[in-house]
């Protein structure tokens, strides 16, 4: 698995892009011939009805599912070549219920170390950043929904990703917690990247108003297609 040629081609503006991607489940097309690209350093909010294909799109970008047709390109190559630069957070915590947040994070951090790249922030710092106490001895399974969401965010933040994919980070959160999350994400975008470069954010949500501060670009999907792209509400 050699990290082929164009690693730094995202200087050519796109951190990730989809090239006429379709994803077909059985006889049902969850994504239909989607072509789009996400400029490096931008922050994109994806809106759309139930079943519009938002989650599917994120998972294609994360390399968790392969498109039936078309290609997903992340940092100039197929998604699985750049795992240490991409992070994905779904609405589940993706953490072990029985371990504490600290144990979880330390474990995942070790999995990211190596490959000659020390691009991993410290678990403590990540937990502090999201407002959790690293010394907490309760296992994640006993956290409240809001604490879980934070811990989950810490997991993705600690790997210091250049491309961050978030699937409905605010669902099941009350308005106050959601607001704090948005602030944190806005802050994250300003963190410097060690090797130079910028941070790209893509998130889906049903609550457009909540995510507004993050919406450099707003992408609306319907029935597996992108039906609208509006830029520059802010940022």
């Amino acid at each position, binding site marked *: 698995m050699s990290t082929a040629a164009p690693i730094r081609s995202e200087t050519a503006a796109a951190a990730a892009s989809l090239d006429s991607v379709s994803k077909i489940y059985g006889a049902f097309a969850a994504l239909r011939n989607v072509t789009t690209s996400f400029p490096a350093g931008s922050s994109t909010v994806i809106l759309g009805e139930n079943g519009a294909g938002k989650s599917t799109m994120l998972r294609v970008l*994360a*390399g*968790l*599912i*392969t498109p039936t047709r078309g290609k997903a390109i992340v940092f100039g190559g197929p998604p*699985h070549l750049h*795992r*240490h630069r*991409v*992070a*994905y957070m*779904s609405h*589940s*915590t*993706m*953490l*072990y*219920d*029985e*371990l504490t947040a600290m*144990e979880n994070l330390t*474990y*995942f951090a*070790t*999995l*990211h170390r*190596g*490959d000659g790249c020390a691009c991993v922030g410290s678990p403590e710092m990540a937990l502090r950043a999201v407002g959790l106490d690293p010394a907490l001895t309760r*296992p994640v399974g006993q956290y409240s929904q809001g604490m879980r969401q934070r811990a989950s965010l810490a*997991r993705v933040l600690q790997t210091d990703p250049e491309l961050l994919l978030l699937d409905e980070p605010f669902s099941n959160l009350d308005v106050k917690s959601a607001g704090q999350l948005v602030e944190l994400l806005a802050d994250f975008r300003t963190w410097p990247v060690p090797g130079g470069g910028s941070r790209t954010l893509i998130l889906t949500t049903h609550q457009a108003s909540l995510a507004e501060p993050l919406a450099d670009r707003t992408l609306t999907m319907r029935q597996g297609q992108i039906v609208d792209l509006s830029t520059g509400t802010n940022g």
Partner: protein
Amino acid sequence: MKYLGYVFEHLRKDLRLEWRSRDAINGMLFFVLLMVVVFSIAFDPAGYPSVTRQISGGILWVGLLFASMTALNQSWSREQRNQVLEAQRMAPSPASALFVGKALANMLFVLAVEAVLAPIFVVFFNLHVLGNAKLLALILPLGTWALVVNGTFFAALGLRARNRELLLPLILLPLSLPAVLMMVQATTGVLTGELDPIYLRSWITQLAGYDLIYTVVCVLLFETVLNAE
């Protein structure tokens, strides 16, 4: 080296998780114990003492087979619960290290169960080892690994299947049959002391060969299974 580091990290995580709940190991222990009791009632070892020694190797391994199958079915459930598996798939460390770590953890659990089980088994079935007892220290780990390595692999394979609990035995039993045959023959050979050492050795060698081949195949194919979607 780096690879071994990852394996160790995964192993440590699994052991810690198990230590927190201790579900698998307790459940397995009790399960095996019950199996021994059920079998001794069903086969009445006291009634036919001459028979006992001949079938006890079979009983031991059938018991372990079912106990470990029940436990292995659960072995990826923690990964599945909060979609942790997706986090694992996204991690840059090699996928097969995850597999090896978990297989080793499962191996340790089953070995622990065996350590407790052995004396009980001897008592219930009133056994005296007539052959070379030291060989058992070779046969037991080899046989256990044969069960565990495939079991861990196919438990992962069946993770997203509809009838998960049913699927694992359906795949694992046919695959393990040759191994079961070898373990039982070797164990019975040692217990009865009747088997020619040459045959005994050949059974053990074959078992080792089985372990080797399947371990290699499992390690090679694990990444494919993990990213099947």
